[in-house]
């Protein structure tokens, strides 16, 4: 396996291939700042929950840098992400809409109460019709094992990594573009 590029996003920093990207904002606002800088043409972003925004931004930056630096034309084949807490932050937001005395369930929040929605958002944005999958794991090493066991299926590189949002303004992503060889 060969790692082509990597992005790491915390509520206070963005690091692409070892180099920090300057940001003014932090937390949830930082994701909006990055959206405006790197996309700006995809208003569906504002419908997404934070987990989906995080994965969307990570993929956006990774794939844009890829085009400008390596002119690699071959498309990405799969999106495989994992975390420990599934979609818990958005689950809690949805729960608030069905609490006692406040029962008005929100279909637009409900859609995001599945962790794999972020993989679907990335697939739609970048026209990826290969595999999308989400795993809930204790450790990132488990994801490495899962990726290793399937890499021979992928002739093009895949997007894979950790994507987690457990509470408002609390998130972490470490996502890579990985080749089989």
């Amino acid at each position, binding site marked *: 396996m060969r790692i082509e590029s990597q992005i790491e996003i915390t509520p206070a920093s963005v690091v692409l291939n070892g180099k920090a990207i300057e940001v003014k904002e932090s937390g949830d606002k930082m994701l909006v700042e990055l959206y405006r800088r790197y996309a700006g043409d995809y208003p569906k972003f504002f419908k997404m929950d934070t987990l989906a925004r995080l994965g969307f931004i990570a993929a956006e930056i990774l794939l844009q840098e890829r085009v400008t630096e390596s002119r690699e034309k071959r498309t990405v084949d799969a999106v495989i992400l994992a975390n420990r807490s599934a979609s818990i932050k958005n689950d809690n937001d949805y729960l608030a809409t069905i609490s006692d005395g406040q029962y008005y*369930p929100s279909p637009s929040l409900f859609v995001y109460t599945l962790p794999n929605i972020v993989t679907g958002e990335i697939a*739609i944005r970048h026209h990826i019709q290969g595999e999308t999958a989400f795993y809930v794991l204790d450790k990132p090493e488990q994801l490495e094992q899962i990726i290793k066991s399937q890499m021979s299926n992928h002739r093009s590189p895949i997007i894979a990594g950790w994507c987690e949002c457990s509470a408002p303004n609390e998130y972490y992503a470490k996502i890579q573009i990985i080749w089989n060889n």
Partner: protein
Amino acid sequence: MVYCIGHSIISPLGAGSAANYEAIQSGRSGLKIHTDRFDDVEPFCASLFDEPQAFVPLCIRTIEDALAHCTSDICHLPETVFILSTTKGDNLDLLTPAQQIARHFGNPNAPVVVSNACTSGVCAQITAQRLLEAGMYQYAVVVGCDIQTKFIVSGFQAFKALSPAPCLPFSPERKGLNLGEAAATIIYSSEQPAGSDERLWTLETGSIHNDSNHISAPSRTGEGAYQCLIDVLRGTRPEEIALIGVHGTATPYNDAMEQIALERAGLQQTPISALKPYFGHTMGAAGVLETILCAMQVTNSTSYIRPSYIIKMLSGFGGVNAAIRLKIEN
């Protein structure tokens, strides 16, 4: 390929795969109207346990039942990995119940949770196959489970996806889906069990594709499902497929999408099995439960040639589709 060495279903229709198989053979359904199960929620038609079940004990019961049919207890071995398929886990926690289940059986490895919406039960089997074929483990205990809650029912009601009456997959009259709860287990081994003449199956191949179209609506062209079917048909011909276990949620768009995908793949003449009128949509359990019952439909009948091939397919939110191909020789 990997070999099924044991399986189990625990649902409102019974405990054990055989009991569930007999229930559907005699036309029993777990679906009924529930009016006061959850506060605030409007009446809904679903297949629920009479007594609300706790997630982890239910998973443990189905794994123990599956083990009872295995020749040896493999759960505690370092060569065994536990794979949980679920969407909402134990009260929105997916990781802790998986760890509790693995610990209960004395398994030393960190468990894997597959949460790929409604395709989880098929994706979990594909993950199992890959980990076993890569030589990372020798056995995989794949358990699928979801328990219905106010959270899930209110969400599907808000989404206007529920049918007020028992669902009608692939019928022009279909009005939506019914929810259900169940737990089911399949144990896979990388090695063929010696001297086994049990009527089990091998999992030959699997495929996962995204529609790349919409996060909550299926593709109008069935693109992802079609690509999965093409992948799992490789090495066989459409006429060799004895049975296709469709997703068959009975929502207008899902079934139309599956129909298009099946036609595009040349499978329009192949018999299909849609089990949600008996169990409802059991979410994380669906792919495991429906795989077992499709296989039993062929293994328990002498009217199928041997070997017979089965395809089990599912689709879900996030635009994800999955399919596997089973081979039945005995």
